[in-house]
């Protein structure tokens, strides 16, 4: 009795898992190699993370004089808010060689909110200020890599305001006015890359 019911249970479980695998495999956006760094993720969550979108992210060009827009795979996020978080998180990460990130290493996304008017508030950890190397151009690159990453990829986001540790700030390192949400600006983006 118990052995039989155990066997049936096992078969049902296998069938569910197999069916889920088939569904997940069939999704069109899962074009990249498997999800990185989620070992042992159990159940249906693991394959869902593998979904990707292609987004334009911004990095400092080789000569350091402009931002370069680069098409990269970013984890899929359900809804605008979740997708915005994924895009910012990706933008905070390492830059593809030979480009460099405009955002200091170690900066974390503390939170992200989007108002009904399409203003996104990106709350960054204190390192965005404390580790910022200074310099007007670099500060412009730091700010606009995030502003442009959100506004270029998410039509629902029209403006972006950066916050540090949950608070509004004047600037990151003394130049760019962060007291208001900023619109997309491609002034510092290399035209050849777009």
């Amino acid at each position, binding site marked *: 009795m118990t052995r039989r019911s155990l066997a049936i249970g096992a078969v049902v479980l296998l069938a569910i898992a197999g069916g889920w695998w088939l569904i997940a495999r069939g999704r069109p956006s899962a074009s990249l190699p498997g999800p990185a760094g989620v070992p042992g993720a159990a159940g249906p969550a693991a394959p869902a993370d593998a979904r990707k979108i292609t987004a334009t992210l911004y990095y400092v060009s080789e*000569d350091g004089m402009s931002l370069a827009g680069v098409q990269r795979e970013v984890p899929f996020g359900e809804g605008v808010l979740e997708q915005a978080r994924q895009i910012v998180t990706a933008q905070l990460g390492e830059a593809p060689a030979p480009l460099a990130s405009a955002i200091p290493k170690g900066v974390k996304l503390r939170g992200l909110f989007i108002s009904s008017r399409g203003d996104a508030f990106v709350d960054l950890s204190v390192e965005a200020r404390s580790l910022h190397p200074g*310099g007007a151009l670099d500060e412009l690159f730091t700010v606009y890599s995030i502003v442009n990453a959100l506004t270029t990829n998410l039509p629902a986001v029209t403006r972006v305001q950066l916050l540090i540790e949950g608070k509004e700030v004047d600037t990151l390192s003394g130049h760019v006015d962060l007291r208001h949400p900023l619109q997309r600006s491609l002034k510092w983006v290399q035209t050849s890359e777009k």
Partner: protein
Amino acid sequence: MFFLRTAVLLLALGWIGAQAPAPAPYTVLSADGRRPLATRLINGQEMFSLDELSGLFQLSVKEDALAGGLAIVAKGQTIVLTPGQSLASVGGRLVSLPAAPARDGKVWFVPVDFVARALAPSLGTRIEVRKPSRLVVVGDVRVPRIAGTIEPQGTLARLTLDAAPATPHAIVQEGQRLLLRFEAEALDATLPASTAPDLITAVRPGDTPSSVVIELGPRFGSYRASEMPGDRGGTRIVIDVLAQTTAATATPGAAGTPAPALPPPAPAAPPLLDLVPPGGIRTIVVDAGHGGSEDGARGPGGTLEKNVTLAVARRLKSALESRLGVRVILTRDADATVELDERASLANNNKADLFVSLHANASVRGSAAGAEVFYLSLDEYGDQAQRVAQGETEAVPVFGGGTRDVEVILWEMAQARYIEQSAALAQAVEAALRERVPMSPRAIQQAPFRVLVGANMPAVLVEMGFITNAEQEKLLGSDGFQTSIVQALVDSIIRYRDRTTAAVPAPARAGGGAER
């Protein structure tokens, strides 16, 4: 074509000469004696030649061809004159002049008031210019003012002389004249014409510089003199000249004599800072970026942006003061933390005409190099700022009905009104920098910079070079490079000034001589 121009120029100069029928010279009174000092009437203004003043006061005059100004060094102090501007900067302090300096050929002319208002403070010597008596009194020379009246009073004629300041004197009779001698080096005398010629024929200056002669008329019998304190610390001398034939019955003293009007004293000349030609620049705020706890960017060799900006700001201040004769205020003159808001407020509160913020750039790439000039971009500040920039107004209801158009702008976005001027300034700065220092490929940019947005005047932010580039880091710390930056900025401000004042008819650009 050249000859034609020269002929026109000469004609113009000749016209100026013809227009001025050489007024009587001034007399310079000093411990060394008396010397004449000629004046010339140029555009209705009496002027001294700077050459003559240089000889008298040991000045060194240098013409700054680039700035178009004149630097006059008097006892180590520099006076800067700018053609077309009726202002002089005396050691950085502005004083107004009744006219701009004028030039005739190689000779520069300055208004008579230049001597008292600009020269005297820089020489640290008392110099009094007495226009009615055409005197320039230098140093502690006693030159009392003497003014008087003659009143016929029946059988006597009363000569009342007011001497200011009170000066010891003596009266002696020498035949048919009275000699009034003052203990002074000279007199600044306005003597009365005689109204009782039978008693006093004339009152005229004596044979020595410090005496007055009273020529006595045919009816002269005797005289009596008295003295009493006069107005303003002066002395009133009353001399009654009595007729021969009549017994002297006149009351002694002169208590009831109405006070003759003293010539109005030369008005003290306070600096009239508000009298600047439209478009003129008199105050510039130079902002040394960062400071105190804000290091700014750091070079690979450890050079800090805040130190470079302060060093250049200080140099720029002295260069602007000495070459343009403007007031320059630094947002910080030490390694101090100054909030971004305070920097713009300082400029606004001092009604600065220009705001120049100095910075050094940084890049994650060590190779990034070149200077860049920024002015504010309004795109980031929404529609309201852009409407203001375009001069749009808002209709505000007024009491009693109706509306009034009012320009509404947040003080924190004051810069919105000056975007066009700031762009012109940025262009001038970029062009001048390009002549002297390496430039970034994208030299003029617009960005939403916090320090610029609140400035209520044309404002630019200059990134002098990349401190993160090892080679540029060395440059930024070097004397030569800092001097080049300063010279470029001075040049650009001159160009900007000339461009913005070009539309305004420049007063008294006499002589039409070599304009830059």
